[in-house]
């Protein structure tokens, strides 16, 4: 068939005949050229606390102008935003918000950053990239919450303008990625290493799902890999799962499982391990040296911040992150 193209943005590598759409639903072969269908057309636009992403070591207490378009490169059975991530662009109501307007709106609303989030920002790569370039020029930071399922070349190009990334490390087995997400683990691990190499501030999130990825040995192996490849200062968030989408048959994650995962991660040498989607002291940041409370949080609210110039107020230990 003539006019066939291959998308080289993510590991799915969709090969498309004329008129066909990519698996992520946001790219289309038209007349032998590949086009994005979602450029400047977000279906979700919100102003959120940066803690919601979650970023705990990146400008705490600030707000982020957050955008998403329809589509995703994966098909996770537990997706929290499946109504838009698994939708076609034409099936969502969209805003007309080109990149320059995103930045204008972010500035007008006193946001310190623009966050590409909710669905999978890789699917609106061109929109995200152009917005990030303009935002950088205006002193607005760029952050993304992504599954990390993206090829190395586009990721390195994007990294030049990305200040921080929260990557979902959904599990540490190929089996989970294959059966539950219709993807694979290896490209995600590669993305984490690339982001680290490019100097992008990195935080990780793992949604702990009963019976599917709550095996403590796997969690331990994952944390050891993180410690070796990304460093002890990489924050990780263990989030509580609630029955949702195609996994509504499973129970919510017990608090004990999250506490065990946190302990396992800290025993593996990770210094900043958090528990999310539940009220617990694991939401707070403690100084790894003097153990005193540095950032106290209640949900998305920062109640106190004892980090001054990137250092612990009590013992002057440098705390990894972007604090101002």
């Amino acid at each position: 068939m003539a006019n066939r193209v291959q998308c080289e943005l993510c590991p799915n590598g969709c090969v498309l005949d004329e008129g066909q759409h990519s698996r992520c639903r946001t790219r289309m072969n038209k007349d032998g050229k590949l086009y994005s269908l979602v450029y400047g057309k977000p279906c979700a636009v919100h102003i959120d606390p940066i803690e919601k992403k979650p970023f705990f070591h990146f400008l705490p207490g600030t707000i982020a102008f957050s955008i998403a378009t329809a589509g995703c490169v994966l098909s996770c059975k537990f997706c929290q935003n499946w109504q838009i991530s698994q939708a076609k662009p034409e099936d969502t109501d969209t805003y007309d918000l080109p990149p320059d307007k995103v930045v204008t709106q972010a500035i007008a609303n006193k946001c310190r950053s623009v966050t590409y989030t909710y669905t999978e920002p890789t699917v609106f790569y061109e929109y995200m990239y152009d917005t990030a370039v303009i935002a950088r020029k205006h002193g607005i930071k760029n952050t993304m919450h992504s599954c990390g399922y993206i090829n190395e070349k586009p990721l390195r190009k994007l990294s030049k303008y990305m200040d921080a990334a929260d990557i979902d490390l959904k599990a540490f087995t190929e089996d989970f990625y294959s059966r539950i997400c219709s993807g694979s683990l290896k490209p995600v691990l590669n993305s984490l290493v690339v982001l680290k190499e490019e100097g992008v501030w990195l935080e990780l999130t793992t949604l702990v799902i009963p019976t599917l990825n709550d095996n403590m040995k796997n969690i331990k192996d994952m944390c050891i890999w993180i410690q070796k490849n990304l460093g002890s200062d990489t924050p990780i968030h263990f989030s509580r799962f609630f029955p949702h989408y195609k996994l509504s048959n499973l129970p919510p994650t017990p608090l004990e499982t999250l506490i065990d995962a946190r302990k396992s991660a800290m025993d593996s040498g990770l210094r900043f391990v958090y528990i999310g989607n539940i009220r617990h002291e694991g939401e707070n940041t403690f100084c790894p040296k003097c153990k005193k409370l540095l950032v106290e949080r209640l949900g998305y609210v920062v109640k106190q911040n004892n980090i001054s110039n990137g250092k612990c107020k009590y013992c002057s230990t440098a705390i990894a992150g972007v604090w101002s």
Partner: protein
Amino acid sequence: MASVNIAALPLQEYGADSMKRRDFLRTLLLGVFFILSGKKVRAEKKPENNLKEAMFWRKID
């Protein structure tokens, strides 16, 4: 402050009869004004009209 005996006030009945011709015309005119001046906003249903050439792809033929 002087108190008002509510019970002693005459009851006002509201219905079609209570609307005077002037009220009716005013309501009608306002309605027509809002209908004509309102701008209908429709969700975009044809994303192909907003195409942007993608980055990172290749022809394979």
